[in-house]
Structure formats: C-alpha cells, structure tokens
C-alpha cells in the first residue's frame, strides 16, 4: 500500500537515525580531538545499534513509500541486517587496525564515511526508482572512493582510489545513459510503473537491450562481475584492509540487492502465473537468463583462475570475492524463489567467512607486517588460534563440509538443478575444485612450512573472542542452519510480488 509523503517519513527512521549519527560522528572531530581516539568509533557503533533496533521494529513491514521511490519490505530488511552487522564488525575491526593509525587525526571522518556508505547501501537495497537507484549507488561509490584512499600517505591507497573513482564514474555514467533510454521508452522512473509499461509488449526490444546492457555495466561494476570487475583487485589490494573488507561485503551485497530488485520487479510479468516461476514473459525474444548465466560463468572462472597466481593475500581474497560474485549470480540465473533464497543464504555465509578472512589478514598485517602468502608461513605454529580460524574461513570459502559455506553452495546448486541448469551447477562445482587449490595453498603455508622465527605471537583475549564469534557461526550454522534458511526464504518477498 502506497503511503503519503508525510507518512513515508515514518518508514525511513533507521536511515534518518543513521544520517543523524553520520553528522554526530563527524562532529566528534570537534569535541573529542586528542581526548579519546575511540569516541568516533563508539558513536558510530551507537548509531548502528540504534538503527539496528529501528530496523528490527520494521520486521514484516511491506510498504512502498515516498510515492514509489523506496520499498521497505522483507527483502530490503534482510540486506539492512547484513549491512548493519557488517558495519558494526568493520567499526570494531577498524579500532584495532594499525594501518589506520597513520590517519588517526581523521577517525571522525573515517567512521562517518562508513556510516554514509551504509546509508547508501540501505537505499540501494530498497530503491524502486531509477533515480533512487542511481543516487544511492553514487552515495555508496563516493563514500568508497574516499574510504579506499583514506590512508592517503600510502601511495597504494592513492592509486586504488584514483582507479576506483575513474572507473566508478565511468560506469555510473554508462548506467545513467541506460537509465535515460529506459526513461525515454516508458516515461517512467519507477520500476513498478516501468513494469506496467513493459507489459504492453510493444516496446522495441533492441532499444531495451541497449539500455539493459548499459545498466548492467553499472550494476556489474558494483558486484564486480566480469568484465566489469577489473577495478576490484587493484582497489582491494590498495585500500586499507578494513575498507576492503567493508567494500567486499556491503558494497557488493548492495549491488546484488539492487540488481535482483531491478530485474525481478522491472522485468517479470507479475500477472504471469505462477508469478515466481521466473519467466521473463515480456521478453520471449531473447533469453535473458543466458546473459546472466554467461556472466556468472565468466565471473567465477576468471576470479578463480587468476586467484591461482596471486601471492598477496588481499589480492587473493579480491579475486576470491570476484569468484564468489559468480557463485551468487548462479542463484540469480534461476530467478526463482528458491534461487534467490539460496543467494540470500549465501550472503550470510559470505559475510561470515569473508569478513573473518579479512579480519585475519588485518591482524596478521598488524603483527607480522606482511600481506604476502609467504608471510603466512608457519602461522599455525606461531599463532595457532588465528591460523585455525583462517583455516575455518578458507574452508568455508571453498565450501568444504563442516562449514556454512558448504550449505550455501549446496542450496545454490540445488536451486540450479531444480530449474534444470545442470551444466551451470557442474561449472560451479568445477570452479569450487579449482578454488580449493589456492585456498589450500594458504593453509599449507600456515601449517606445513616451519617458521624461521618460532616465537609465539598472541593477539589477546578480545581479538580471540571476536574471532570466535566470527568462527563459531561458520561451523554452527552448518549444523543447524534452519533459522537462516527460513529467514532467507521469507526475505525473497519484495513489495509488489504476491
């Protein structure tokens, strides 16, 4: 049910609160300078917590607000939780990062940018209007350009942010051009109305294809799908680890949220029965899912193959995250509820394992001053707990049984088999096999290579605790994942479907 503008404000309370805390965090620069280095971080955490409470209060809401601009529905709710959890974890990681100490005078700005990126991600997840999509994407992008170059004394970070901003601006330019063509065809910016316009079936297919391919360039850049992925490894390697971890989850998840909503709402004939069968009724002319399938295959294959050759841990994880975007895209190919719920489940797994892995990378960089895989030699002897945790995360990333990553992949494959995309499932499995090689390389280095220096390096109780908090769900959710599953299954509901 559409809400009036005035009523609508009630539905964006979490976003409003985040915006307020964005400014408050910024203001801590004036108040707390030199007094408490953690003040901005705590403010940001408080902001995330308050927003979290407000988001929880929206459980089950299914509304379209601001005259069709923004959907507050279970689907976006799912992603908002993901963003908030990621945001909180990233803030905590950042508090421990040595890398960021170089810019300790600008903590307030740093944490406020993390909030602003999260605000952008919130709007991306709920945007149901092309303008909103573009604006929220830009908010995420601009925040991430700045964040990735935040340690500006570090030339690598500078390079990362330069490449990121050029590539990002170019991609969003393509996307905007695509939007303008779509607007010309339908006269609509709202994706629901857009669907209606498409329902007439008289629109020229080729023109729509042009528009969609251009939009894909923008969306593909956010989710780093091949061939729009090239910026990813460079930016991930150059940016501070915490920022890389943040981008790899929040920015990517937001991109996926927007992609799913755009295609699912905009292009699926809601009147077709069954609605969720995933038929692209309006486009019998070309097989749309094949585009996504091809992108998915390319994405995971390129990600995995190039990852084989990496020696820098951050870069390896960057390629691995590209490959994971490919896996997640597999679920999108099906366009069924089952496929999308599998994607959502995979996001939970991805959040846990990817953030965990990056956390280890950050800790190792803190104490061992290395990001090289070679530098991980003997980690199993020197910091057994951290090494064990990384092993769990890497297993989960590979999708080996006693981890949640396995369940995530299993559900993706099941969805594919269900819709008869067996070849794609096979490609996915082969890719997982390839990925095993480079993940195990790291594990082998940690355990089979004896370190020259055998002194133990401990990380303290708090770190171990946080590590445990990240690690336990990776295994526990393998044993009992029913809650996540039912959450994901409920979250495929977007406003306007059913």
């Amino acid at each position: 049910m559409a809400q009036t503008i005035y009523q609508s404000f009630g539905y964006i309370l979490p976003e409003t609160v985040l915006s307020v805390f964005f400014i408050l965090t910024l203001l801590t620069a004036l108040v707390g300078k030199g007094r408490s280095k953690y003040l901005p971080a705590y403010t940001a955490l408080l902001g995330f917590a308050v927003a979290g409470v407000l988001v929880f209060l929206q459980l089950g809401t299914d509304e379209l607000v601001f005259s069709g601009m923004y959907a507050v529905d279970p689907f976006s709710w799912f992603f908002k939780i993901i963003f908030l959890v990621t945001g909180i974890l990233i803030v905590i990681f950042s508090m421990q990062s040595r890398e960021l100490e170089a810019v300790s005078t600008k903590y307030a700005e740093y944490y406020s940018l993390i909030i602003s990126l999260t605000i952008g991600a919130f709007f991306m997840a709920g945007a149901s209007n092309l303008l909103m999509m573009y604006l929220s994407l830009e908010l995420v992008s601009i925040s991430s350009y700045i964040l990735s170059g935040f340690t500006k004394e570090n030339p690598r970070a500078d390079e990362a942010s330069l490449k990121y901003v050029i590539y990002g601006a170019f991609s969003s330019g393509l996307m905007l051009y695509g939007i303008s063509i779509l607007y010309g065809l339908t006269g609509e910016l709202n994706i629901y109305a857009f669907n209606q316009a498409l329902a007439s079936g008289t629109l020229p297919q080729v023109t729509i294809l042009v528009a969609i391919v251009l939009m894909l360039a923008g969306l593909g850049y956010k989710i780093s799908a091949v061939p729009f992925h090239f910026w990813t490894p460079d930016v991930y390697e150059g940016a501070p680890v915490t920022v890389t971890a943040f981008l790899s989850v929040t920015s990517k998840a937001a991109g996926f949220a927007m992609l799913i909503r755009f295609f699912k709402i905009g292009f699926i004939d809601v009147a077709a029965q069954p609605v969720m069968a995933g038929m692209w009724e309006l486009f019998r002319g070309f097989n749309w899912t094949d585009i996504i399938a091809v992108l998915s295959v390319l994405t995971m294959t390129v990600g995995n193959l190039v990852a084989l050759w990496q020696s820098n841990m951050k870069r390896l994880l960057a390629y691995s995250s590209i490959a994971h975007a490919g896996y997640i895209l597999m679920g999108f190919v099906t366009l069924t509820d089952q496929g999308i719920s599998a994607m959502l489940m995979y996001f939970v797994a991805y959040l846990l394992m990817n953030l965990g892995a990056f956390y280890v990378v950050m800790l190792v960089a803190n104490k061992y001053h290395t990001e090289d895989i070679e530098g991980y030699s003997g980690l199993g002897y020197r910091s057994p707990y951290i090494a064990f945790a990384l092993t769990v995360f890497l297993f989960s990333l590979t999708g080996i049984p006693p981890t949640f990553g396995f369940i995530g992949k299993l559900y993706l494959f099941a969805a594919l088999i269900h819709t008869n995309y067996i070849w794609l499932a096979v490609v996915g499995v082969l890719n997982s096999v390839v990925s095993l090689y480079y993940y195990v390389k790291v594990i082998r280095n940690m355990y089979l290579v004896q370190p020259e220096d055998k002194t133990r390096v401990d990380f303290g109780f708090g770190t171990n605790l946080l590590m445990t908090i990240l690690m336990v769900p990776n295994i526990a959710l393998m044993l009992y994942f029913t809650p996540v599953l039912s959450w994901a299954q409920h979250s495929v509901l977007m406003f306007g479907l059913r």
Partner: protein
Amino acid sequence: MNWYDITFYVFAILTVVSAVGVVFSRNIVYAAFSLLFAFFGVAALYVLLSADFLAITQILLYVGGILVLIVFGVMLTTRAQKVEVKRGILSVVPAVLIAGIIAGTLVGVLTTTKWPAANLSPYEETARPIGALLMTNFVLPFELASILLLVALIGAVIIARREKARRA
C-alpha cells in the same frame, strides 16, 4: 528550415565541435575552454527543449562550479605538464574503433526506435513544477543528494588537504 531548426543546428554543431576539442586537444587549457563551450552548447539545447530552469542550472553549476573546479585542478597540477606529449595507453585507431562502434550502434538504435511520442505541448514554466516535485515526490532523492554532497565535501577536503606533518 525555420529559425528553430537553424538555432538547433548551430548549437548542436557548437556542442559537438567543442566536445571534439575537449577530447582531441593536446593542451589541457584548450580542452578546458572547449569544455566551457560544450557546456554552453548543451545549455542552449536545453533552452531549445524548453527547459529554462535546467539551462540556468547548467550554466551556474557546470560553468560556474564544475568548470572552475576543473580549472583550479589544472592550475594546481600544471606544474607537471601543460601539453600531453603522447596519447594514453590506446593508440588512436582502436579507440576510435570502439567509440565509433558505440556511436554507430547508439545512433542506429536510437534513431530507428519508435519512441512513444505525443504532440509538442506549449512551453510551460519549469522552475515551479520542478521545485514542487523536489518537495513532494522527489523529496527522498533530494535528501539523499544532500547527504551525498556532504560526503563529497568531506571527502574532497580530507583527501585534498595538505598534511601539516608532511610540510614539516
């Protein structure tokens, strides 16, 4: 050919030629000036499209804002080089090829598409309805844009600011 058409062609050609100047000029200052003319041309096209408010915005923001920013950028970094000695990584031919294919495809597709069109409505003032829309249906993007500008502002400041420590 009526005056409208002639005006259109004049400004269209101005825009395109200036744009060519922007991307082909070797001197960055010339390029910047070409960009100025391209912006003016686009603004004029807006006027032809009865988008008066937008035309003013274009001139104010682009010419007054973005272009000045660019010129500042040019001046601040000009110590390095004014003139591009060599092209970027791509030689002219492949670049022309790619841009050409895209241009050809776009022109081909866009001109052959049957756009949903109606008779031209008479000119209406646009500033008022745009303002009204910004405060009603588009209030959320409006707020979002304000956050975005704030973020950009902060970002630009912290990234561009010279560090005291470095100078010392």
